């Protein structure tokens, strides 16, 4: 059962994003579109980390799986943009399942390192097959290929609307997931694994399922990134892109549905603002990570939920 206030809040956020489109300058239209795509990625990360308690340092691999499935599908195999958007989440989910089958035999710190290592191997694999992936230089998807029907997705408004559509779908599914019986089991696994086992839940399958769903989200975001922004490069598969969703989720609030979007929005503009003032934007990322774990480990919405709004999903 979904609390009415919660449903209303999430619909209101979606309505605001849609209503904002005609009022935004072109620069911000691009930015918000990018933020919405990255927020889908972070939502996926949050399903693993925030709800299930799986702190992965290798999600860039799942993002990249969607990204390259879409990018190479279009550029090498003549896949349509719509087809790429379907292939992306499948690839992300598959990658997460494969990694999970092995990595979930470990837990805690070992899980973090194993996922980091697998993602590093994935990143190197992209560099190794430079002939097909074009490595660091990356694939630029031709404008003509970035269209669904006759709609040109490289233009500001359609790209915003496509990003919005994917974001809205992801957000509402996320809301439904965490309020479903399975959502409750994910949280139970995070809170007390030994207890959950003695309630008859197999920790391995629960975590694997959550990780797979998380990978589907990451893959969907990767494919959306490829189609909407037309660029697919190895840097998007690097460690930094595994840390990014962690940062967004920590800032917005782990284990909250809107947290990833809020975190992505604030962090994106903070970095955007900082890099116009100084070149040292990594300072901001580093300082933000440390300050968050020190002083606000529950993030903005997590703290809000604890103090004022327990109904917040």
């Amino acid at each position, binding site marked *: 059962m979904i609390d009415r206030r919660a449903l209303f809040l999430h619909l209101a956020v979606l309505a605001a994003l849609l209503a904002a489109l005609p009022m935004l300058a072109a620069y911000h239209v691009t930015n918000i579109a990018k933020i919405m795509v990255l927020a889908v990625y972070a939502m996926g990360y949050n399903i693993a980390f925030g709800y299930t308690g799986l702190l992965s340092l290798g999600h860039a691999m799942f993002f990249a799986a969607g990204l390259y499935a879409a990018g190479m599908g279009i550029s090498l195999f003549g896949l349509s943009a719509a087809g790429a958007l379907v292939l992306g989440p499948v690839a992300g989910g598959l990658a997460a399942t494969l990694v999970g089958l092995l990595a979930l035999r470990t837990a805690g710190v070992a899980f973090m390192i194993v996922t980091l290592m697998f993602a590093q191997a994935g990143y190197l694999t992209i560099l190794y097959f430079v002939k097909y992936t074009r490595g660091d230089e990356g694939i630029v998807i031709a404008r003509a290929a970035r269209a669904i029907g006759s709609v040109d997705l490289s233009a500001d408004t359609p790209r915003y609307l496509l990003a919005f559509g994917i974001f809205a779908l992801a957000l509402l599914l996320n809301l439904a997931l965490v309020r479903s019986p399975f959502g409750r089991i994910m949280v139970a696994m995070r809170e007390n694994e030994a207890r959950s086992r003695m309630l008859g839940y197999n920790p391995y399958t629960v975590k694997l399922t959550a990780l797979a769903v998380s990978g589907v989200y990451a893959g969907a975001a990767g494919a959306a990134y490829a189609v909407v922004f037309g660029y697919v490069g190895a840097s998007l598969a690097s460690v930094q892109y595994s840390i990014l969703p962690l940062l967004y989720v920590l800032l917005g609030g782990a284990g909250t549905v809107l947290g990833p979007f809020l975190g992505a929005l604030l962090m994106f503009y903070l970095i955007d603002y900082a890099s116009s003032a100084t070149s*040292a934007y990594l300072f901001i990322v580093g300082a933000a990570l440390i300050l968050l774990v020190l002083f606000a480990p529950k993030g903005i919405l997590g703290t809000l939920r604890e103090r004022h709004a327990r109904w917040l999903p």
Partner: protein
Amino acid sequence: MQLGSIFLLALLEGLVSASVLALTACGLSLVFGIMRVVNVAHGEFFMLGAVLAWFTASLMPGPPALTFVAALVICPLIVGAVAALADMLVLKRLNYEPEATIVATIGLLYILQQGALTVFGPNALPVPAPLDFRLQFPGFGYSGYKIAVILAAVLLLLGLWLILTRTRIGLVMRATQIDRATARAFGINVDRVYAGVFAMGAGLAAIAAVLIVPIQQAHYLMGADPLLLSFSVVIIGGLGSLRGTVVAALLIGMVDQMIPIFMPVVFPAYGAWFTPTLAKIIATLVVALVLVFRPQGLFGKRMA
């Protein structure tokens, strides 16, 4: 060159890299063994040691040998101080909770990297070797400095071993490792031990870096490789076991250096499809699989 000479050269290069790696990885292993902290910023302490060595060498007057020795003393101290500060200001306040600590050290990694870029710039910074003579081996001459690096590393590791097993400091550290609460009850200042261990771990990385800069040059992005290699070493050697760490460092350091030298000779296809990148992919996967299937490492005993 003859095959025998090539093998000897590869062996020497492997030993140089293994000895530096052993020092770096022991720092990581020490911190993990005693504090149960996985320090992702370890590579940046290495990098910091290297750029500070350049700074010292280029700022201090006097012959290279003197400035280098100065760097060998000063850099680990500065890096150790930075680490101790990070421990007291951040890690201690997180109560060394494993996941929060890793996230914090990731933050530290970014800050140190960006700090080095801002202060020292993006260029590779050379440091002159303090020794300038070559040893003649059958078929090739070899840098005397590199031999000195191997010897220095062996001495430092012996020193570390003596500190840990034969001194009161080592005893206090081991007591803290076994049981924090009991150590505290016996009047050990656990906070100070932790800050000290974290500083010592970082200092070891810094010493390793100072030793390597005359060969490799200092650069703000140089921390990534030692970090990944040290992780691999510590995992293969068995988490927290210093003996395993040294053995694994020897193995990985040798393999890492010998493959690019030796493989083209014995394996003509090397470089065509079997590239260094592929070797790295395989190595990374192997390490990950070891952690999955043998978390006690290849040399460690399985805990009950």
